[in-house]
Structure formats: structure tokens, C-alpha cells
């Protein structure tokens, strides 16, 4: 019984949150990796693209709520996501037209575009703060739990509860659907294949009659959608705050690089590696250990390796280790 309690506690505090967080990171890292593969630079504005998409979704959600629209047990934000995607797409396409396109025409070196994307990041950053403000906003509504801790305890008679939040379930289901759709698109459709061809060899793609501007357009469309979905899922799960989204850039980049930049499969794996390590290392394991180990070995402290404030350090330590020992990432991406 103690062992079972331990497993439930582990699932409740580590596995479920990490899977949800990992899915969000994976969606974010997919966007970064696509831009890296096709536009050939690391897009530092990605976290803030997520913020803009989420902000539009939040505003639309509030509008829908004011009109009395709701999805019943599901959060209203799901209805507002298409509007958020539209907003983010419009913004990145405008940015591309007035900023990135100039540098593409110059055949600018990617490192220049990296710096340009930093400038874009600051603009987006300010835009979000001007429009919605710098505070913490909650926009999740509907049923909070699929199974609450109390229900679970009553059902099973265990001491430990297992809470499964609606947002966590939605996150995982959405992530699986989005990733499946993306892989289908990249591997089976003509446009998807032309994107891979462009990523592989720009000159030859041009000689095959592939229109580079169209590839870039489709890439931005996909990236804006991925960013918005990832941002909304994260916001539903936690809350929306512009600064948090800016900070999310760090674990997202770590995930993309750990998985292997330019490799979509790697982005997903990287997302989960980073999420599990972050949650695992900052979790106080005492509760689980007390259940799982004989009473004589009961730990004195909290058995928390790092306090939660240091969670970003975890991504970076993993990043450094991967870059030292497997520079191309877990799945062979572009060599570094």
C-alpha cells in the first residue's frame, strides 16, 4: 500500500506536471527548430511570439466570456485560439515583410538575423505590455479537474490523492494532435516536402522551381500557430504573464538544442527531457521516498536537489552537457 501511495504521489507531483510542461515546451521548440531549419537562424523572438498569440487569445476569451459564450466544462480559450493564431500570424508576417525580408534579399549571414530577431523580441515584448499589461492574468475557466485529489482518495481509499487537471489533459491531447498534423504535413504534402527541400539545399530548391518566398510564408504561418497553441496551453495550465513567456525562451531553446536543432523529432524529445529534469530536480522527493523506503532510511531533509528558483539552471546544465558530449543533440540535428 505504501508503494502504491508512493507511485501515486510521484505521478501527481512529477509525472503528470512534467508531461504537460514537456508538451508545451515541445510545441515551442518545434517552432524554434522550424525557423532554424528553414530561415536558418535562432529566433529569439519566439517566446514573445508566444506571448502575443496568447495575449490575443486571452483578450478574445474575455470578449467571448463577456458575450456569455462558454464551452461548458472546457475552457473558453479553446474557442479563442484561432483568433490568437490569426493575430500572431498577422504580426509575424508583417514583421517578415518589413524586417526579415530585407535581410533575406541581402543574403545576410544568419548571425545578423539572430541579432535582428533580438530587436524584434524587444518590440514584441513592449507591444504585449502596452496592450495587455505586465501583470499576471488567469483566463482558464470551465471544469478545473478531471479527477480531483479528494475524489481520487475517496475512489481508491489511498492516502495520497492524484489530481488530474482539465488543462493538463487538453495540453497532452492537443500536443499529440498538433505534432501528428505537423509531421504529416512535412512528410506527405507537396508544400511540406518543398519546405524540407528548401531547408536542405536552397539553391537546388530554387533550380527545382520552388518559390522561396512561399516556403518562408508557410513556415511563418506554421510557427505562429505552433507558438500560439503552445502559449495558450501554458497559460491555461499556469497563467499568462508577459515576462514568464519571455523567460520560457530559455527552456525552449534548451529543448530544441538538446533534441538536435533542425530536427522536429528532436524538438519533442528535447522538450520532455528538459521538462522531466526541471520538475525532477526541483521537486522535494521526501514524500515519495518516505513511502518507498524502509522507515529506518527515512530522509531528514526535503531531498530537493535545487530550489524551484533555480529551475532555469537545470535546462542550462543539461544544455552544456549535451553540447559537450553530443553536440548534434540527442537526435542528429545540424552539427554544432
Amino acid at each position, binding site marked *: 500500500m505504501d508503494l502504491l501511495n508512493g507511485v501515486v504521489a510521484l505521478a501527481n507531483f512529477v509525472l503528470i506536471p512534467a508531461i504537460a510542461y514537456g508538451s508545451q515546451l515541445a510545441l515551442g521548440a518545434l517552432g524554434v527548430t522550424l525557423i532554424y531549419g528553414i530561415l536558418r537562424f535562432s529566433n529569439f523572438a519566439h517566446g514573445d511570439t508566444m506571448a502575443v498569440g496568447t495575449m490575443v487569445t486571452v483578450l478574445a476569451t474575455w470578449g467571448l466570456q463577456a458575450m456569455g459564450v462558454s464551452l461548458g466544462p472546457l475552457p473558453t480559450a479553446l474557442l479563442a485560439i484561432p483568433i490568437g493564431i490569426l493575430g500572431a500570424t498577422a504580426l509575424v508576417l508583417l514583421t517578415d515583410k518589413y524586417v526579415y525580408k530585407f535581410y533575406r534579399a541581402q543574403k545576410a549571414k544568419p548571425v545578423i538575423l539572430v541579432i535582428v530577431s533580438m530587436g524584434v523580441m524587444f518590440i514584441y515584448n513592449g507591444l504585449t505590455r502596452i496592450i495587455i499589461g505586465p501583470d499576471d492574468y488567469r483566463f482558464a475557466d470551465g471544469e478545473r479537474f478531471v479527477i480531483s485529489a479528494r475524489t481520487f482518495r475517496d475512489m481508491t481509499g489511498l492516502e495520497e490523492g492524484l489530481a488530474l487537471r482539465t488543462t493538463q489533459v487538453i495540453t497532452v491531447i492537443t500536443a499529440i494532435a498538433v505534432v501528428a498534423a505537423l509531421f504529416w504535413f512535412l512528410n506527405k504534402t507537396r508544400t511540406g*516536402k518543398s519546405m524540407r527541400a528548401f531547408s536542405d539545399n536552397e539553391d*537546388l530548391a530554387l533550380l527545382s522551381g520552388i518559390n522561396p518566398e512561399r516556403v518562408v510564408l508557410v513556415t511563418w504561418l506554421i510557427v505562429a500557430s505552433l507558438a500560439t497553441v503552445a502559449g495558450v496551453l501554458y497559460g491555461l495550465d499556469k497563467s499568462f504573464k508577459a515576462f514568464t513567456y519571455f523567460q520560457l525562451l530559455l527552456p525552449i531553446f534548451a529543448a530544441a538544442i538538446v533534441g538536435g536543432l533542425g530536427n522536429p523529432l528532436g524538438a519533442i524529445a528535447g522538450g520532455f527531457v528538459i521538462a522531466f529534469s526541471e520538475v525532477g530536480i526541483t521537486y522535494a522527493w521526501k514524500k515519495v521516498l518516505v513511502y518507498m523506503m524502509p522507515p529506518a532510511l527515512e530522509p531528514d531533509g526535503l531531498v530537493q536537489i535545487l530550489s524551484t528558483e533555480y529551475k532555469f539552471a537545470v535546462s542550462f546544465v543539461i544544455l552544456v552537457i549535451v553540447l559537450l558530449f553530443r553536440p548534434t543533440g540527442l537526435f542528429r540535428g545540424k552539427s554544432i
Partner: protein
Amino acid sequence: MSGNPYQDDRGNKDASITNPHGQGTLIASGTQVRPMPGGDGPFLIGENMTGGYGKAGPDILHGCTIAVEKGEIAVIVGPNGAGKSTAMKAVFGMLDLREGRVLLDGEDITQLTPQARVRYGMGFVPQTSNIFTSMTVEENLEMGAFIRTDDFRKTMEQVYELFPILREKRHQAAGELSGGQRQQVAVGRALMTQPKVLMLDEPTAGVSPIVMDELFDRIIEVARTGISILMVEQNARQALEIADKGYVLVQGANGYSGTGKDLLANPDVRRSFLGG
């Protein structure tokens, strides 16, 4: 290098933020998408071409003329640095011509971008980076047929008949193939548009002699289907043996030209370029 500050990466080699792999270098010279009426003459001719790379680069070609008739094989040979590849690139619109013009089937295509030339029936196989390494052989061929809106399965079947090994390896990533097989993929990709002219930049560079013979055989087969072939070759002797027309370039100008057999028999050409 080119004086463009945007093209200076200041020594950055950090691939965790930049991805130079596969970045394009092609700057199209032309501006038009439609050819102009030209005149009579050979099927494809680059006439009196003078020009070099970039807007201000020095001239590499000096009044060079290259022509090929329908269904024939024309070969450009010459010493290193003679401008062989440059002449071919000029015909394909990859550098600015200061003088001269390019005619395809009686139409003036001098101002066409390389992409537009592909649509008008020119296929080009670059010397290096001529396949999509991360994609399967079949996907490479599909990308070759990207501009086609009709059913291209028949053409793919023809390519597989021409290069049976590709059918065997069609689900394998092209980057995993041997040098000779990669060249076959590259030629196959260019054939997918059903070009009227196929241009090959040193198709046998870096392949073994046996594979080279086989590639030449395949190229003759392609020519027999009515496609004109223009190629640059290092292996001058072998190339001239299969050529209907040969051009020996010397310092960016026509040195000798004639049928392949004539050039092989010409004592000057033999002494200077074929090693006696």
C-alpha cells in the same frame, strides 16, 4: 569579401544559433520571366558571351560562344581556370552578361532568371550540392518535378528505367548513397522536369572510372531521347569521344571548336589539353 556588411558574419561559427548549412548563394541575374523573340540558329546558343561574377567582378568570359543542337551532346573542355563552368553558368543565367545573348529554340532568354529558364525547358545539374541529401531518392525526384502540375509518375518510371539502382534505393536518403549513385539522383532530378536541354557541370567529378563509363553511357541514352546535352568535363578525352560538338576554352574565349572526333585528331589540341 563582397563589401556587403550584411554578409560579414564576423567569424561567428556558433551553429547553436545559426544554420549556414544549405544556405543559398544563387543570385539570379535576370529580371524577366518571359523570353523575347530571338532569331534562327542552333537550338541553344550562348552567343559572344562576355561577363563575370557580380556587378563589378572582372570579366571571366571574353566573347565566348557555346551552342548545341537538338539531341546532340556538346562538351566544354579546357585547362583549369579557363572558365568552363562559368561559360555554362552564363548560359543558365547565373551571372551577369555584359555582352552577348542566349537563345533557346529561337527565343531570347538572356534576361530570364535561372528559375524561369527551368520552366522554359532547361535542366541544370550543378557540380556539387546537387541533391537533397536529407530526402529520399523518390522525394528528390518529386522535388525535381515540383513545377509540374500534371502526373509525373511516367517520367519517374523513365528515370528508374534509365537508372535501375535508384528504383532499388528509392526509399533511402539520397545522402547515404555512393558518389556515382548520387550523380544519378542528380541527373534524374533534373530530368523530372522533362527538359529540352540538360546541362551537366562535371558529372563525373569524384567517381571511379567504371562508374564514369556507366554515367557516360547513360548520358548518351538521354541524348538519344531527343534531349540536348551540354556538359563541362575534366576527362576531356572520354568526353570528346562521345561528343557531337566540342569546345576547348582558353582563358574565357573559344580556343578550338569542332566535332569531338576533329578535336581528338587535332594535333594542337592533343598536345595542349590531352597530354599528347
